[in-house]
């Protein structure tokens, strides 16, 4: 394992990032079967009614309500932002979501609606492929920050990572972090393209060492997106990083989480892996578009006592 990693194709980068390579090579491998079994076992926890009410409200407050389509319009973003502020207009006790997540050019439209009531996150760095020069990625980031984004979701260069060119990935994250200024940086690992949990662990450490405030599973454009075992491995990396540095890094699970049941499973995994200090929108997020409607239907069910349906929530 370690011998392969040290033979980086980019020798210049490898030599200037010896410490990084040594750190990543020194990480122990992930027991994939064990991780899957652990995630599955945590997913079977029975959650009683009062806890469920709390979990649903917590999950709503952790949602990054997202629209990342080529067909996005100012009108669609405006409507989504209104929903982000008041997810269930029939019930004002419903919490707002944590943030809205849009493409960089739509940040002003989002900011206009949400003001400073919730965060505006922008995807940058040639999302979702990340295939552009560093100069383009930096400009993409600076423009989004200048437009008012207070969170930047960047993608790593998976090609460079898979080729073993960790130094390049590291330097890019450092540069983007600098370009972010005060904005929080979420680093998207795109775990669906990293293939193995070993790689997920390595990429998590790499991103945290490079200055990520959050590590995020996926763009949502690649299947598989977020899965419970992948999120578990990332949370373990965050926990180990915290033990070493006393710095809390956030985790964002994005893509493929569609039901309240799934969301609650993630909250259980968070609680059991890193503890309840992470059960806050500052340290755990869901990147989702359809999840919110299911959370709202379950919330309505909890409060009314009867099952709700899609007719009682807005279509995005």
């Amino acid at each position, binding site marked *: 394992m370690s011998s392969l990693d040290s033979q980086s194709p980019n020798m210049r980068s490898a030599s200037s990032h010896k410490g990084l390579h040594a750190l990543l090579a020194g990480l122990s491998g992930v027991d994939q079967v064990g991780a899957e079994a652990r995630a599955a076992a945590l997913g079977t926890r029975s959650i009683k009614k009062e806890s469920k009410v709390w979990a649903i409200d917590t999950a709503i407050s952790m949602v990054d309500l997202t629209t990342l389509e080529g067909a996005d319009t100012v009108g669609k973003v405006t409507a989504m932002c209104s929903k982000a502020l008041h997810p269930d207009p029939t019930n004002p006790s419903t919490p707002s979501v944590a943030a809205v997540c849009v493409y960089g050019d739509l940040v002003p439209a989002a900011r206009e609606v949400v003001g400073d009531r919730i965060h505006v996150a922008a995807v940058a760095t040639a999302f979702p492929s990340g295939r552009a020069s560093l100069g383009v990625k930096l400009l993409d980031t600076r423009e989004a920050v200048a437009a008012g984004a207070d969170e930047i979701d960047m993608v790593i260069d998976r090609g460079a990572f898979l080729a073993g060119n960790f130094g390049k990935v590291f330097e890019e994250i450092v540069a983007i972090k600098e370009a972010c200024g005060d904005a929080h940086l979420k680093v998207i690992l795109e775990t669906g393209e990293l293939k193995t949990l070993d790689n997920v662990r390595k990429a998590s450490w790499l991103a945290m060492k490079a200055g990520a405030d959050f590590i995020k599973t996926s763009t949502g454009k690649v299947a598989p997106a977020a899965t419970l075992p992948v999120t578990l491995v990332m949370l373990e990396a965050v926990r180990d990083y915290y033990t070493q540095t006393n710095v809390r890094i956030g985790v964002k699970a994005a893509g493929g989480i569609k039901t309240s049941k799934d969301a609650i499973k993630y909250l259980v995994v968070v609680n059991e892996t890193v503890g309840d200090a992470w059960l806050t929108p500052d340290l755990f997020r869901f990147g989702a578009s359809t999840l919110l409607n299911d959370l709202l239907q379950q919330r*309505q069910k909890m409060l009314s006592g*009867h*099952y709700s*349906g899609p007719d009682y929530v807005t279509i995005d």
Partner: protein
Amino acid sequence: MIGNDRVEVRKTHKLFVGGAFPRSESGRTYEATNSQGEFLANVAKASRKDARDAVLAARTGFNSWSKATAYNRGQVLYRIAEVMEGRKDQFISDIQDAEAVSAKKATHQTDQAIDRVLWYAGWADKYAQVLGNTNPVSGPFFNFSIPEPTGVVAAVAPADSSLLGLISVIAPIITSGNSVIVIASTASPIPAITLSECLATSDVIAGNINILTGDPAEIMPSLASHGDVNALDLTGITDPELQKALQIEAAGTVKRVRSAPVNPDWQATPSLSRLRAFTEVKTVWHPLGM
């Protein structure tokens, strides 16, 4: 049946939800008996959670079934009749066991049930012409009224007519493009289970017809209040108190409710009233000369 030293395979029947045959989520079963109280088979006893799962399946089924062409819906209904015809002997013996009737009467009921499916198959691409209309209006417009399916319908099959009554409830609901969750006769569920096996091997879209076995008094209240159920057919509810309670529950989400008929005659040729009960009329104004 039990010959020599062979041990008969005893059946534990399952529910029919989303085109599959799941056990009850609760794990419960009850014993179906004939009219003399002799054991026939174990049958799944559906819970409220099973009903909730069935609503999800029915909604998915509705989304594709309601978009199928009227002609195609007729073909699928015809296919149900074809498969039932092939299982005729099983239906006859099921009905004899369940209702303690002669072979002749059981055969007659089976024939009628199959013919009833065909009758509605014929209506699939014709009922809109009869229930719909072009309306004269004082302006330069065409004005059409078109019946459209209501959505997901929760129904209770009659207790006494285990196959013909069941078919007479299901067929009109699905003919217009609705999906149905039907609770089979609690006392005589076996013919309904045989029917679900027919449906699984015909061209019925998964989730379009869902058959639960169990106690309507336990299952129906959660369906009556469910926000994603659009209408109730209370045909098999004989207890007036329960019927009233379900109507009140249904009012909370403004559902259509068809009450239990008084002394229904399942043998008689039906009218279109069951078809009409689960449709919504859409009226369209179309400018002339465009």
